[in-house]
């Protein structure tokens, strides 16, 4: 907490990357919005914005890595970064909570009202509006929205999803193994562990892609397949996106390990990436239980 002249809390005095990143993100989102509205120029702006955003990420993180390696960050700065990462992950948890909450609400409340089960505000909904509907999860609703002729298959738990669970769990183990390597100054173990983790991550994404392809082409299960399809793809899709982000972050950490960065005392980037990876791992366990198993 305390600082003195030689070990001061590092305060940068100007920052060019934030405004560049903001401009990139703003351009990208404005472009995406235009694209959704059917404007031809939309996608151009989107890609341009994305490029700017990516160059910001590269630039900013390079700057941080160099500052870190040149010893500009004291213990206090490290604590701030760790707090920042922790609270960022907390915000991500809340983001996923929305979709888990949606799944819970539609499975347990609105589906019952539509199906005429129980007594509540919707007590007449079923009889007056959806008399033919039988409430049973998985469902694409009383209107039989989406699917092949309104029919679809739900995704079973014990196939690829189970393989994926094993993949992610073991990647968590390899990640921790790499961390032990880092702490024990065993760079070989660090690099091998990280390589294994990143590979397992991308393997997971590949399996997920196969699963999606099967769902779309054979099972009649798409994003548009009623509430089951919506919740299924929203949850697993955002999770998949986070796996990709996590794997990219880990790749950067791997690259830095190669270059000889990190010491047993100073390796915030590794820790942050590992925390993030474990978070992604835990979310998957939630998904496996609530989306696939139940």
């Amino acid at each position: 907490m305390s600082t003195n002249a030689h070990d001061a809390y590092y305060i940068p005095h100007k920052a060019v990357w934030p405004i560049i990143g903001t401009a990139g993100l703003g351009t990208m989102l404005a472009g995406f919005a235009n694209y959704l509205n059917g404007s031809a120029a939309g996608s151009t702006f989107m890609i341009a914005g994305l490029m700017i955003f990516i160059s910001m990420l590269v630039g900013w993180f390079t700057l941080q890595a160099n500052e870190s390696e040149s010893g500009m960050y004291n213990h206090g700065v490290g604590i701030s970064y760790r707090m920042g990462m922790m609270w960022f992950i907390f915000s991500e948890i809340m983001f996923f909570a929305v979709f888990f909450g949606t799944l819970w609400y539609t499975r347990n409340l609105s589906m019952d009202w539509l199906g005429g089960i129980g007594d509540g505000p919707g007590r007449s909904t079923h009889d007056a509006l959806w008399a033919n509907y039988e409430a049973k999860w998985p469902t694409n609703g009383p209107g039989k929205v989406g699917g092949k002729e309104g029919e679809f298959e739900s995704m079973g738990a014990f196939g690829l999803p189970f393989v994926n669970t094993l993949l992610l769990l073991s990647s968590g183990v390899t990640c921790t193994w790499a961390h032990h390597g880092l702490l024990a100054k065993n760079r070989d173990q660090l690099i091998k562990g990280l390589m294994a983790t990143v590979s397992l991550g991308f393997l997971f994404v590949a399996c997920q892609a196969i699963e999606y392809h099967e769902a779309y082409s054979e099972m009649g299960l798409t994003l548009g397949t009623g509430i089951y399809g919506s919740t299924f793809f929203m949850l697993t899709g955002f999770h998949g996106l986070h796996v990709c982000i996590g794997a990219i972050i880990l790749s950067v950490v791997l690259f830095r390990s190669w270059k000889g960065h990190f010491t047993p005392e100073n390796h915030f980037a590794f820790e942050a990436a590992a925390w993030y990876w474990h978070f992604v791992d835990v979310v998957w366990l939630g998904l496996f239980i609530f989306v696939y198993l139940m």
Partner: protein
Amino acid sequence: MSAVVAEHDHHDEHHDHGPAKGLVRWLITTNHKDIGTLYLLFALAMFFVGGLMALVIRAELFEPGMQFVNPTFFNSMTTMHALVMVFGAVMPAFVGLANWQIPLMIGAPDMALPRLNNMSFWMLVAGVLLLASTLFMEGGAPACGWTFYPPLVLRDCGHALPFAVFSVHMLGVSSIMGAINIIATILNMRAPKMTLMKMPLFVWTWLITAFLLIAIMPVFAGAVTMLLTDKFFATSFFDAAGGGDPVLYQHIFWFFGHPEVYVMILPTFGVASTIIPVFARKPLFGYSSMVYATASIAFLSFIVWAHHMFTVGMPIAGELYFMYATMLIAIPTGVKVFNWTATMWKGAMTFETPMLFSICFVVLFTMGGLTGLMMSVAPTDFQYHDTYFIVAHFHYTLVPASVFILMAAGYFWLPKWTGNMYDERLARFHFWMSAISVNILFFPQHFLGLAGMPRRIPDYAVQFADWNMVSSIGAFIFGFSQLIFLYIVIKTINGGTGEKVTDEVWEDASKHSLEWTLPSPVPYHTWATPPEEVPSEHF
């Protein structure tokens, strides 16, 4: 002592880091004071933009009949007024205050994550620009209410929807980054002797507010993302035919929305708890109960959301639960009001403008709180819901509460920041104009609501004409009175009355909080070495 620290600061290793030259300074600055200034000026600008929209609304409602705008534009104005005021004015203003004050008050050299701090601000600007761009779009700005209820927003929002959604995403990222920064600063950067229970209440309330922000902004982002996929990617979250439910959106929205209103009121409590003791020349009464009350209000805010939805048709058990939980909020809120009153009791009060605004806040916020209590009772809410009674209620808790306290904060701290004194006579005139007109503006709306006038309508039955006219007159007086504030602020920044203020500015203020031990105006860099001693709340 203060002078010594500041001198030390200037001859420190940072002496070569003054602000960058020209406009670029503001684009790339990482200084918490610069960023605080940016936030505050942006908020002030948005306050006038949102205010202008309010005046369009009140002009149309001046008389029955449609005179100036068409109904769609009217709805756009109510929607944009709310969004601009909430996300563009009140929230950024409090973040600005946090940026300026938190490091000064806890003895920190800057915010914990200065680069992120810069990005928070510019993301806010970009988000508001995305939103504002819809005003000039074919089909116009969103006209579906700031709550974006589906299916209305999916049917009638046209080109504006994706822009509004992405704007919410950017504002969310901005708020989350800002909140993370504030938490890290408060928990990690305090002077050695500044224990948690010695922190000024403004810092405490912001710590809790920051936690609320991190918890709720992702929820809002998730909700609007589902709107986007329902509209463009064929999902069925809010469509009964596919097994979804439009009411689900309302639940998610208000899970965000209720804590969100406390994001605007908790820092208000904090500033009031900081100003009132200074002018009562007494320590704050019940410091620890204030902290606990703030924490309880924050906790309760997460479990009462559906009181915004008593009429959507919930199971009776749900209605009862949300009614009871909501009534509970009255207890910690009551404790706060009693504490402020007890702080004034047997003090030696003087009534400079910040104190006038703060007292006015306590009185009028209590009124807004009491109408809130009336609405917490579900059966009576069946009558009040979505009428002008609600409009009166939440404006009482936002305008004479949050906005007045922001002005109080401006008068309170501007002399410290700029080293110049504001024009006290003009400021008092501004206060009395605002305090009187705000009641002319909002008090009649209680009558309108009880008599049966729904909110968000561009035209009304003739029995509502008289009070609407009174309300509109109040609105215009209030609106134009704020130009006095603008004038005072500009004048104070440019030299004020010419009278140089002391380091303490207000009598014995340094007994209350650290910033008054620094020189006036506050140097560009402060607390390079943290203060040795910190004031105790219980001097």
